[in-house]
């Protein structure tokens, strides 16, 4: 059973997570600035102009992404606020209220996404402004115990400061990918400016291009490594909050066996936020997956 030793362990994890979140977010911002710098260099061939150009844009972008992150994630998921006049959604609000009490957190905003799939995600800038969104498929197919399990997992993402790291990374990875694409296509069409100002420049240019190509891969892999570990942690924190690992285990089992015929909606960039990746083919695992294998998660929950 979950004992009190576990509690202390969870508290320690949360403290470490908070530190890690700050470090990773800062690194992402730095990486982003370096990429813009490289981008500026490719076009202006002058490191100082590039610097003047890169730093404000980089910082500005991160600040803007941070401030509009919640509304843009909700818009990308096409979610709407839960309606307390519909019984299913009222019960969802009840389960969220209960879990927020268990976690000792303020009540998050509750949203619903129209989708056949069983899924849910949490977002927000900090635990005081958390958001939990659940699909209508989950409301219809899960019983209240399983729904509670899913909510406990999402509440843990809020409590563990996973939501900030996810939103910032999504923003930065998206922007870096956009820049790489611009550079790639402009080179493809023979764009760019005057070339051949000596060999030193060519080497710098090559480094800049390489950086732009590698940056999104690097950012994504860093994030994925953290994301997978934090899924396990959110499972165990969730089980600790509800004192009922079986609820979440059963919900994951239902998710595993759930194969609606329609295509999943929404944008791929927000996939890491969900409780299970909505775009995943079965058993696609390892380095490039946002989530650990579902069977392993169920096994760990059942052995608590």
């Amino acid at each position: 059973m979950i004992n009190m030793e576990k509690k202390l362990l969870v508290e320690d994890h949360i403290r470490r997570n908070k530190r890690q979140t700050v470090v990773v977010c800062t690194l992402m911002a730095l990486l982003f600035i370096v990429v813009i710098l490289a981008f500026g260099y490719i076009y202006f061939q002058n490191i100082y102009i590039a610097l003047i150009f890169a730093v404000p844009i980089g910082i500005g972008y991160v600040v803007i992404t941070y401030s509009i992150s919640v509304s843009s994630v909700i818009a990308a998921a096409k979610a709407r606020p839960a309606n307390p006049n519909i019984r299913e959604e009222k019960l969802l609000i009840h389960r969220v209220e209960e879990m927020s009490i268990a976690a000792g957190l303020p009540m998050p905003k509750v949203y619903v996404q129209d989708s056949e799939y069983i899924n849910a995600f949490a977002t927000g800038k900090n635990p005081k402004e958390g958001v939990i969104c659940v699909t209508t498929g989950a409301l219809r197919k899960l019983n209240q115990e399983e729904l509670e399990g899913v909510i406990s997992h999402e509440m843990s993402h809020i409590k563990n400061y996973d939501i900030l790291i996810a939103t910032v990374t999504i923003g930065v990875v998206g922007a870096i990918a956009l820049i790489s694409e611009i550079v790639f296509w402009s080179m493809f069409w023979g764009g760019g400016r005057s070339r051949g100002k000596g060999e030193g420049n060519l080497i710098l240019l090559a480094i800049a291009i390489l950086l732009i190509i590698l940056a999104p891969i690097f950012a994504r892999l860093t994030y994925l490594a953290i994301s997978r570990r934090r899924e396990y942690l959110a499972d165990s924190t969730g089980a600790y909050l509800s004192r009922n690992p079986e609820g979440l285990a059963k919900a994951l089992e239902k998710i595993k066996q759930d194969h609606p015929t329609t295509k999943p909606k929404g944008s791929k960039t927000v996939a890491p936020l969900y409780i299970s990746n909505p775009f995943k083919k079965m058993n696609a695992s390892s380095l490039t997956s946002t989530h650990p294998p579902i069977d392993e998660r169920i096994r760990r929950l059942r052995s608590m």
Partner: protein
Amino acid sequence: MLLWIAIFLIIIVVVLLLIFFGYYNRIIRLENRIDNSWAQIDVQLRRRAELIPNLMETVKGYMKHEKEVLENVTKARSALMSAKTPQDNINADNMLTGALKSLFAVAENYPDLKANQNFLSLQDELTNTENKIAYSRQHFNDSVLVFNNLVETIPGKWFAGFMGKKTRDMLQIPDAAREVPKVKF
């Protein structure tokens, strides 16, 4: 030389003061968390007591032959209203949980009642408050555990002694209540 000793002493005093402030604030913060958790439980207990008369009003018309079940609920409610200490409150609440459980079990025999929208929504509300009470109680005990760990271990123990703070009691959950599943839907 004298200057260096003075600087050294000042640094030591500042560090000691910082440690003192840190512990002082931490103890106060944890204690406030416990009081706040209790306030949460209290709010939910009150909310639950307020829902009961509505429930009785709705059920009365349908359940004419279940006097005892209804009386038990009323009795538990008045025990809850008159409870003074936290532990009394919790005991009365457990009584109410048991009484409501048998009321909802009996309700299964009345299809008309089960179809009543008002009854259904009251049942949802009561389940919600019951779960909230359970989770507030859990959070209360978690907070007490963290606080007690701090004031019972060194050096927190010294600060607690200085501040006149003692360990807090956890809420005891009676054996009978433990068998009631925390989440029943």
